[in-house]
């Protein structure tokens, strides 16, 4: 099912005001309902390499598997939909590619990347994430964070060691506890949510949410939701106006209409047989 008419996607990525390199990477495939954002880390250009590999591998591999399968197909062995398994497999492939490159080439040693991926299908969105790149949603005028960072800071907040207020001034905002390409295997956190026409999804790197308050981000989405491209540029500009100490990347996805899965006769028969 081609989602180009269902999803409006805009993205913007910028090195920020301080850094000379942009280690963030964004990619989108509207037809397959896939958007990927990665924030790389590692010396010299290794961060760019890691995030670039993550987005390319995930997008191209997903395109390949989705050419012959649909996310809502049911796996006869597990009698579950294959979407989560497909996405997880491609994330693991990206992990292996980055890890092997880091192992074999000394200049890439230790590189890795955070990741947030959304796969839209059948009136739903499947989200996989690693590290501190985030997904937010604006629905019915309410702006909410969807993912929870895999970071030392988030763990401290969860365990009640520090308050949200203290977290804003914390010194170790940048320490992530899970990332792609660091270890031979990784477990992405995955969740599925129902979407609603009119929803606006925001994927962003920490360069945005560290520099701009969530309230201001929500306000920009509400005010400029009518023009996603401008909204993406505005968000990057707000981060830069506030100092722009890190690379800033955003992807915005608006759900224009319902997109229920067009299940064929065979699938229905199959479901009935079960």
């Amino acid at each position: 099912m081609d989602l180009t008419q269902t999803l409006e996607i805009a993205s913007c990525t910028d090195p920020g005001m301080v850094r000379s390199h942009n280690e963030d990477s964004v990619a989108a495939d509207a037809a397959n309902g896939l958007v990927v954002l990665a924030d790389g880390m590692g010396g010299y250009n290794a961060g760019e390499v890691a995030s670039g590999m993550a987005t390319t591998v995930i997008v191209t591999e997903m395109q390949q598997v989705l050419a012959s399968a649909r996310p809502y197909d049911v796996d006869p062995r597990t009698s579950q939909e294959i979407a989560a398994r497909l996405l997880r497999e491609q994330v693991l492939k990206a992990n292996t590619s980055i890890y092997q490159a880091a192992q074999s080439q000394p200049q890439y040693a230790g590189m890795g990347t955070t990741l947030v991926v959304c796969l839209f299908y059948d009136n739903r969105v499947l989200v996989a994430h690693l590290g501190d790149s985030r997904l937010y949603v604006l629905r019915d005028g309410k702006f909410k964070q969807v993912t929870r960072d895999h970071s030392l800071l988030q763990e401290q907040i969860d365990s009640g060691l520090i308050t949200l207020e203290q977290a804003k001034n914390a010194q170790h905002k940048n320490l992530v506890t899970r990332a792609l390409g660091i270890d031979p295997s990784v477990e992405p956190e995955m969740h599925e949510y129902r979407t609603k026409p009119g929803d606006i999804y925001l994927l962003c790197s920490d360069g945005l949410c560290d520099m701009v308050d969530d309230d201001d981000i929500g306000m920009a989405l509400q005010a400029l939701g009518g023009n996603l491209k401008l909204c993406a540029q505005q968000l990057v500009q707000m981060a830069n106006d506030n100092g722009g100490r890190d690379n800033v990347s955003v992807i915005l996805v608006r759900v224009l209409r319902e997109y229920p899965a067009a299940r064929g006769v065979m699938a229905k028969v199959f479901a009935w047989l079960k």
Partner: protein
Amino acid sequence: MAKLILSMDGLVLKEIPLTKERTTIGRKPHNDIQIDNLAVSGEHAVIVTILNDSFLEDLGSTNGTVVNGNPIKKHFLQNNDVVELGKYKLKFVGESAATVGAEKADFEKTMVLRPAAMKAAAEQAKAMTGSSPPQAAAGAVRATASQQAVASATAAGIADKDPRPVPAPAARPAQPLGAIQLLSGANAGKELELSKPLTTLGKPGVGVAVLTRRPQGYFITHVEGANRPAVNGQQIGAAPHALKDHDVIELAGVKMEFFLKA
């Protein structure tokens, strides 16, 4: 002390400590760092060192100054930056790196904490407290988990200590507050203060514009609708348009005046 390592084709030629406030680089002999190469201008660049910070500035050289592959006019030197002047390379080794031998911390840079490393560090810490007097051990136990986590991260060589505190988020510079006053329409005379970073104006479907408050001042941008707003009778393009005091905006048939409050 920060220093520069001069090399050509990977061959280290010399090390130059940055002892002076101004260290000049150029082809002429009066420069602090003389590089006798025709690709280098007579007075090519200067490095200004203030306390622990060094800034590189190109002095209008013919062939320009390149740092890490990017041509620059002015650049805040960071540890391991490579300055290229023709065939010559100058590597900057920062203060903390030169003395401690560790890479200079960069708190904004995302780094990963590996559970294995954390565990090893935690065990190491436990072993240390085990051999210390009971009082000290009790004290160590009372140390918050956050401190432990940070300490273990440091021990694992992941987080780098930098004595400088994290700079506070850049405060918005004092900037006069702007407002608009409606000049026509049903609400003529009404005033609207522009205190928020974004204010939307207009009617959805007809013409919507947004007024953004930035450190440089106020800007108006067209968002949607067939009718673009006009400023002082001139329709604006797709790019944000800077607003001046007493500009008259016309949007969806309504005129309004933008002004700055004293």
